[in-house]
């Protein structure tokens, strides 16, 4: 899913993220081309994660930039269901995109890269993705 809706990435899914290091709102692009689920550098900064001490992990490339994929350990993601209730999901594979160079220039360059919900999360929870860009509608559907 790499389509744009009027130049904005789409589809986004919102959730509350909680780990031992951070708690807050995250808006993530559902990207079925990504094997991994990661928080963006911008979201890491917004959630005040200690990114300077997180420069470790498997190197990965995204949008021409090289990152460390740091792991956050035990985390939960709380979504809003269509009937207005909350659905909390334990997800222990959340990564964080930490630029290999942490200077101001690099942080500015990667600020447009969004958080991503990848196939690891969709597979774990047996979610299917519905997306209709023309109506700007997207949601995850649990497949029993």
């Amino acid at each position, binding site marked *: 899913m790499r389509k744009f809706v*009027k130049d904005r990435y789409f589809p986004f899914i919102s959730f509350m993220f909680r780990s031992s290091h951070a708690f807050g709102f995250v808006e993530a692009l559902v990207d079925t081309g990504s094997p991994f689920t990661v928080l963006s550098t911008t979201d890491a*900064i917004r959630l005040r994660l200690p990114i300077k001490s997180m420069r470790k992990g498997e190197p990965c490339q995204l949008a021409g930039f090289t990152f460390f994929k740091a792991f956050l350990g035990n985390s939960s993601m709380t979504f809003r269901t269509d009937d207005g209730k909350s659905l909390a999901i334990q997800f222990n594979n959340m990564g964080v995109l930490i630029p290999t160079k942490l200077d101001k220039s690099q942080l500015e360059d990667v*600020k447009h890269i969004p958080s991503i919900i990848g196939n690891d999360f969709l597979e774990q929870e047996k979610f299917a993705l519905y997306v209709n860009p023309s109506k700007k509608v997207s949601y995850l559907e649990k497949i029993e």
Partner: protein
Amino acid sequence: MENETQTLEILDEDSKWVTENYEELRKYEGKVIAIKNKQIIDVSDTLENIMKKLEDKKENSAFLLIEAIPPKSVSFIL
């Protein structure tokens, strides 16, 4: 948990608002904007600056939508 769900609903609405109004928001190209309750509460040149300004305003960035608007001349494809 109920408060968390309500907060998520409000922020989800902000996210939809950004998508629906993205053409209008392109006037902030190259800037970083902070959105709260479907209103732009701050505009800065850099992420670092907006974080400082939000802190000065006692706003918790973890519960705000912060959007970096790319320059019109640049397209981002992941």
